[in-house]
């Protein structure tokens, strides 16, 4: 595998990091394992099918809640990985870059999961649901903020672990953390639902 600028050792190392075989070999086992994990998520969804059908607001919450958690997770992972490569990443509560990442995740979660609650309630009512506004908002915010905690902890852990094992965090962290948040998102959502609803 050669490239226009493979003259230096550093150049060769990077080309290897960008070879098709390397990317596929790193990712396929991971994606396969995570797909099996997602079947668990699918099974959980099927189990709660009746509750979901009865309360359309909750049905609307499911994909949006999970999707937003995935967004927050991939922003955090992507930023941490870039900071790792640029040499500004350090697992220390006083690290300004780390604090900025964490602060932004919680601010975004508060804003978005509040909006999700309102939207899900509105759509639920339009679809003939009877769940009250306060309950939908509470479910959305509580499960959303719990997910934000999970996003931060899981992202930092995934970046650290993949760096120590010697895998490129760009290939490994996002699939691991977004999948974890998908499955945990369903579990957290239904844990909160069973308490609140």
């Amino acid at each position, binding site marked *: 595998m050669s490239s226009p600028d493979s003259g230096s050792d550093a150049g060769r190392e990077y*080309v290897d990091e960008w070879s098709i075989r390397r*990317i596929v070999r790193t990712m396929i086992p991971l994606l396969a394992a995570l797909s099996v994990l997602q*079947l668990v998520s*699918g099974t959980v969804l099927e189990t709660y099918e009746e509750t979901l059908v009865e309360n359309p607001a909750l049905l609307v919450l499911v994909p949006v809640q999970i999707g937003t958690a995935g967004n927050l997770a991939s922003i955090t992972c*992507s930023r941490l990985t870039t900071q790792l490569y640029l040499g500004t990443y350090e697992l220390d509560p006083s690290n300004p870059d780390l604090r900025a990442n964490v602060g932004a995740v919680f601010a975004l979660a508060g*804003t978005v999961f509040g909006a999700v609650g309102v939207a899900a309630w509105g759509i639920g009512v339009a679809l003939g649901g009877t769940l009250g506004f306060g309950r939908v908002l509470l479910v959305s915010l509580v499960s959303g903020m719990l997910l934000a905690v999970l996003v931060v902890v899981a992202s930092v852990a995934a970046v650290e672990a993949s760096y120590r094992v010697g895998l490129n965090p760009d290939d490994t962290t996002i699939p691991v953390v977004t999948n974890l948040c998908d499955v945990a998102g369903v579990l957290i959502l239904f844990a909160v639902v069973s308490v609140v609803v």
Partner: protein
Amino acid sequence: MPGHDTARDVYRQALPVILVSLVAGLFSGTILGSETMRAGISEVPGLLLLLPAFLATRGGVYGSLGARLSTGLHQGLIEPRFRLDRRLTNAIVASFINGMTVSVFIAVITFLWLRLFGNEGNLLELVGIMVVAGFLSAVLMISVLIAVIFVGYRRGLDPDNVIGPVVTTLGDVFGILFLLVGIYVVGAVL
């Protein structure tokens, strides 16, 4: 400066994209709840079971392609324009292979899972749906991702803050839509 934004910078750059993805998420929820989709779910055993895995791998495959391109841009390894650069084409081909392989794999394990718990399932049907949906989403995701990353980077937007929402949004909305197309195509062929 890349990697040195304050919490407020990250918040302000990420919020608009996340809100757009929120609207799209509500939209994909509506597609999922539509009558055509519900009919498909009841006609094809295993569809509900493979849905989370199918949607999640869109995020995994194309999210990591985005993160890789973003890191490459920050390191100066690739340039923000589309030409036949070795690293760029490698990353694209690899994500296509990953996307298709995993789609077929999901169909197979869903079939096995159904059989394991004594339910009915049609392997050919599931594989067919996944191949159609996987191929269509690969073509769409790769083209849009590259366009968004390069154009955004040239305009001073840190791709790290944008890729995730773009991938999950398009992955979910078009994933569910292409799943419908897959059901329709396979239903017409088989």
